[in-house]
């Protein structure tokens, strides 16, 4: 039963993708691979794929760097550490809609705090239109990194705590500086967890819908951040092309599977148990 719960929607998506079907009406017409042919010829598909890839790559890379750095700080002993560790998780625990409205308020070009400070401190002359055509991708990436980095922090921190302190002591005795200890002792130990974190984060960022959609809603420049998941949604629920939308989901799914297999081929080592 559980297996069918997983397989059924996926199977049904594939079945739907072979039809031309309106999202509302039950009638459907068999078109075979017609929808897939349309996708290949669809400029908007390629554009959304490019934007989705840029978004996923940028956010994953930044989350990884910020997350590891934050975990290293939180691993050290200092007063109030328990509180800081909990506080750092907030952005990940709050609903996406809240994260989005808070940042859209902070980044509002007329009344927002961020632009006010940037102008007051003379970092910029004119308020930056964060949700305008030029900066909407940048602000989306920044906001997403803020929201999702805690996942990396928690995963890395959990692993850091299991590294035997003797390893660091030994390196210290050998005269290794802080940076050398990080590169030669800590990083190799983190390899397995980073392998999983990069895989999960890039998949989840590539398929992220709500954050991206809500960031662009009513902003006027939403087109600039139309990633593949947003495009799937629009085709199905704005243009009511359920068959086409299903085909897009299947393409997205297939690409992720292929990327995952490739990723394992390239980076997986047998001794790792993740």
């Amino acid at each position, binding site marked *: 039963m559980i297996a069918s719960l*997983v397989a059924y929607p996926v199977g049904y998506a594939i079945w*739907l993708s072979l039809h031309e079907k309106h999202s509302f009406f039950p009638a459907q017409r068999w078109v075979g691979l017609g929808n897939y042919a349309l996708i290949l010829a669809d400029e908007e598909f390629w554009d959304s794929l490019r934007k989705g890839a840029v978004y996923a790559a940028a956010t994953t890379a930044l989350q990884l760097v910020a997350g590891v750095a*934050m975990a290293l*700080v939180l691993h050290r002993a200092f007063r109030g550490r328990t509180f800081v560790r909990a*506080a750092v998780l907030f952005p990940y625990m*709050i*609903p996406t809609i809240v994260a989005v409205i808070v940042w859209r308020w902070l980044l509002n070009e007329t009344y927002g705090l961020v632009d006010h400070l940037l102008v007051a401190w003379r970092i910029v002359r004119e308020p930056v239109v964060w949700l305008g055509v030029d900066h909407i991708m940048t602000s989306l990436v920044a906001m997403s990194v803020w929201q999702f980095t805690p996942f990396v922090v928690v995963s890395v921190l959990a692993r850091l705590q299991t590294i035997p302190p003797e390893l660091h002591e030994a390196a210290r005795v050998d005269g290794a500086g802080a940076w050398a200890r990080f590169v030669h002792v800590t990083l190799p130990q983190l390899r397995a967890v980073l392998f999983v974190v990069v895989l999960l984060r890039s998949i*989840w960022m590539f398929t992220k819908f709500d954050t991206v959609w809500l960031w662009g*809603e009513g902003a006027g420049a939403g087109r600039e951040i139309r990633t593949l998941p947003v495009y799937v949604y629009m085709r199905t629920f704005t243009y009511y092309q359920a068959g086409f939308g299903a085909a897009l*989901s299947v393409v997205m799914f297939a690409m992720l599977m292929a990327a995952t297999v490739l990723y394992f081929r390239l980076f997986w080592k047998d001794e790792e148990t993740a």
Partner: protein
Amino acid sequence: MRRRPRAGRRLGRALLYAAALGLTAQAVLPLVWMLSTALKPPREVLATPPGLVPAEPTLENFARLVGETAFLAYLRNSVVVSGITVVLTVAVAAAAAYSLTRFAFRGREAVAKLVLCTYMFAPIMIVVPIYVMARGLGLVNTHAALVLSYSSFCLPFALWLLRAFFQSIPLELEEAALVDGAGRLRAVVHVVLPLALPGLVATSIFTFTLAWNDYVFTRILIASDELKTLPVGVQDLFSAAVVDWGLIMAAGVLITLPALAFFAAVQRHLVEGWGSGGLKG
């Protein structure tokens, strides 16, 4: 052992505390700003320069939110839908996980692997088939559609989480209870479930968070205003022609509170849940 000079060590401590302060600030300040805006009267919300502490704090925004919008209806819908989803998912997942760990059947490992695969799924990958199926079943615009979507989305992973916990409970304990004359059901309720409590908590958190925070399933499955849950209801307030920031921030505060309270209440169990991967999104 090489000793760092004293001044260097002090500088290190100072940097560490500065970093800790920075980490806290980046996470908490945006939310503090939300609270501050929510407590400001409309004139002050748009004032330049903006102040962190409201000059004339007021609950006006909250009063308007409750009095003039359907916020309370959204809140009730969110509580009902999330609550039922958690109970249903945990009950089914616990039963399935129990049978997966206690009874041998063919393909047991394959099922476990398949389930793990779904951890990578995102809602957007299944919204299209779910929507068309819900339409076919006449479930569009009902809370049942939401509960079923969330449960089926969470179940595989909930099952996988619980399986790990059930596996760690020695069979001998159960057998001892059975030998003492307890039926299987009693053995499960009195011996297995209490031991699996951290797992049940982790699973509940995972399911609750997903249902409470969900946007996309509600957006596509619910059309009437009185059935909407909080995230979609608040987005509709936000999409109004003139954005009423004080009102929106008040709504943000009220949605965040239950999530944070829940988080604080179960924080002790959280580490364990995360250790076994109770995070997604």
